[in-house]
């Protein structure tokens, strides 16, 4: 009964009501959008590396080890010896190890020395493996595989030459030994996209003529000679480790952390990622606060609209009173109208988010590496919608009370 009356009354003011519904819908969409981006970002972040049970590096903080070995942010405090890594590889329960060696760069991108096994072992986002968009892994000493962002931003294609710079901010270049792009990886949304990958031996090779960070004087060793040299590294920056069984992880971690010959540290990527996410959680909270404020603003705007329209509606209230509606019915009518407006706003907002996600999901994944799930609203999102509805009811109480008082004072005799 009241719903029908409220609906028709709202229809009579469709322009104002439509704008109010739109304002609420936009704010709800923003809130849910932020929530989707937050959960999507978190999920993508937590899936940066998968299938790797432990990351082993020199003893340092777990977050720092994760930052430099996976995200390629900052530098290692120390390297780990090749012998130590071999010992780790031979520990019972270790299935595989993939060493990585960092230090050089190409323009703004990090260069990572590793083995071809890296392309088979590195997994991301629910166990997806690296795929080659073009070409294949390195065969020659001076072959390189580049990530999707490197190829896109620098406009590289298969066969293009790449000159590696020594260190991260150095003007010294290994220009005597240019690399050739033999593979371009498909987009992953992980730091791999922004990495230039070469073989461990190549890292050794380009440093043969270097000593303590500077190039030795004299002629460079020819590439053909380098190809025939034994180029086994003495140290690496870190290593990704896979175990034969998940139940071995803790004992292996303990064993590596207690390795007597060198101060090593093994961290579980998931745990370290979680720690790192907590560090950036402040930004997440700030986003939620901002979107909450947008919702509050929209609801206050709605309340202002209802207040502004009340005086014009006194005659309507008087008609209802004359027909037998009590002040309480008038109060409930106003509340019902508000609920319909807020409910429509919430529904439209949810639809907007899903349409946006449906259309932009692939693009966002490609551009930002964030996979926004198009599933049913989560419990947290549903709670948010219910909270918005409750808040809408709360802010409508004041104008509804005013209408109640009007209807008491005016009775059925408003004349305008």
């Amino acid at each position, binding site marked *: *009964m009241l719903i029908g*009356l409220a609906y*028709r*009354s709202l*229809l*009579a003011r469709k322009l104002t009501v439509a704008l109010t519904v739109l304002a609420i819908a936009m704010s709800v969409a923003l809130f849910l959008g932020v929530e989707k981006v937050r959960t999507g970002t978190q999920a993508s972040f937590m899936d940066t590396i998968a299938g790797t049970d432990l990351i082993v590096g020199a003893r340092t903080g777990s977050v720092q080890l994760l930052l430099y070995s996976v995200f390629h942010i900052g530098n290692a405090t120390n390297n780990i010896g090749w012998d130590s890594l071999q010992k780790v590889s031979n520990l019972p329960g270790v299935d595989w190890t993939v060493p990585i060696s960092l230090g050089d760069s190409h323009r703004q991108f990090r260069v990572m020395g590793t083995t071809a096994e890296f392309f088979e072992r590195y997994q991301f986002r629910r166990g997806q493996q690296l795929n080659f968009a073009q070409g294949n892994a390195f065969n020659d000493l001076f072959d390189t595989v580049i990530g999707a962002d490197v190829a896109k931003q620098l406009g590289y294609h298969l066969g293009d030459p790449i000159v590696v710079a020594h260190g991260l901010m150095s003007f010294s270049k290994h220009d005597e030994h240019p690399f050739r792009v033999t593979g371009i990886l498909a987009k992953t949304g992980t730091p791999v996209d922004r990495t230039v990958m070469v073989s461990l031996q190549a890292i050794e090779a380009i440093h043969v003529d270097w000593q303590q960070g500077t190039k030795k004087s004299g002629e460079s060793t020819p590439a053909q000679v380098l190809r025939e040299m034994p180029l086994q590294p003495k140290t690496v920056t870190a290593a990704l480790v896979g175990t034969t069984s998940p139940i071995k992880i803790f004992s292996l971690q303990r064993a590596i952390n207690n390795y007597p010959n060198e101060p090593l540290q093994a961290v579980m990527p998931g745990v370290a990622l979680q720690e790192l996410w907590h560090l950036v959680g402040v930004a997440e909270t700030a986003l939620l606060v901002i979107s909450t404020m947008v919702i509050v603003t929209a609801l206050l705007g709605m309340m202002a609209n209802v207040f502004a329209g009340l005086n014009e509606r006194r*005659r*309507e209230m*008087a*008609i*209802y*009173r*004359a*027909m*037998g*509606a*009590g*002040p*309480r*019915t008038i109060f409930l009518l106003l509340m019902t109208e508000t609920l319909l407006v807020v409910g429509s706003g919430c529904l439209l907002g949810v639809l907007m988010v899903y349409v946006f996600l449906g259309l932009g999901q692939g693009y966002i994944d490609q551009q930002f590496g964030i996979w926004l799930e198009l599933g049913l609203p989560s419990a947290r999102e549903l709670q948010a919608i219910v909270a918005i509805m409750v808040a809408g009811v709360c802010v409508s109480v004041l104008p509804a009370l005013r209408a109640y008082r009007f209807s008491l004072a005016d*009775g*059925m*005799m408003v*004349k305008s």
Partner: protein
Amino acid sequence: MNFNSEPIIALHQVSFTWPGSRQFALHIDSFTLHRGERVLLLGQSGSGKSTLLSLLCGVIAPQQGTIVLAGTNLASLSVTKRDRFRAENIGVIFQQFNLLPYGSVADNVLLPLVFAPKRRQRIQQGSNSMAEAQRLCVALQLPDQILSARTSELSVGQQQRVAVARALIGQPEVIIADEPTSALDRDSQQAFMNLLLGQVADSDASLLMVSHDPDLAHYFDRVVRIEDLQTVTSQAEALC
């Protein structure tokens, strides 16, 4: 016409002052409207006609005295019950028609039934609500298919007849009309009064119509001047 039957409305020693108002007070010693009776209440602007109608409808309650409507003392009812009682027993026609600007003619005519289940039941015993609305519209000489029209599309005369249909639907015992002819020219006024009185008679209702126009007197069984009811005194007079 002989009206020795029990009164449908009876006021006794009713006093009312609007809260906070020092300028106006209404006092009525006695007023009675019998079943089936048609009474014209004449009074000038500011004489207290609208206040009296609000009292009769139970929208406001007197500070003193009793108002008995259809055998029920309104003072004995809670505010909510008074609202329901009004919905069930009184049809109201406003001076300015006061149709809801949104919705169709049918929405407006059927509106009282939303708040008055008994009026709804009365209709459903022999017909259905929409058919009854249609019957009233035809009886009031409104065009076919008007039920689906929007009220904003109607002429003034049509709006007034829709307001009458709204008051009559579900056969309330009393029709209260607040200057319903004030916006009509003389010819339209006559046609309207004939239709209104005919339909009131058909539904066995009593009619209390308020107006400042004494020319309407010949349509009614009785004419009462509100001044004769010793109705309005200023606060200053009351204190003397």
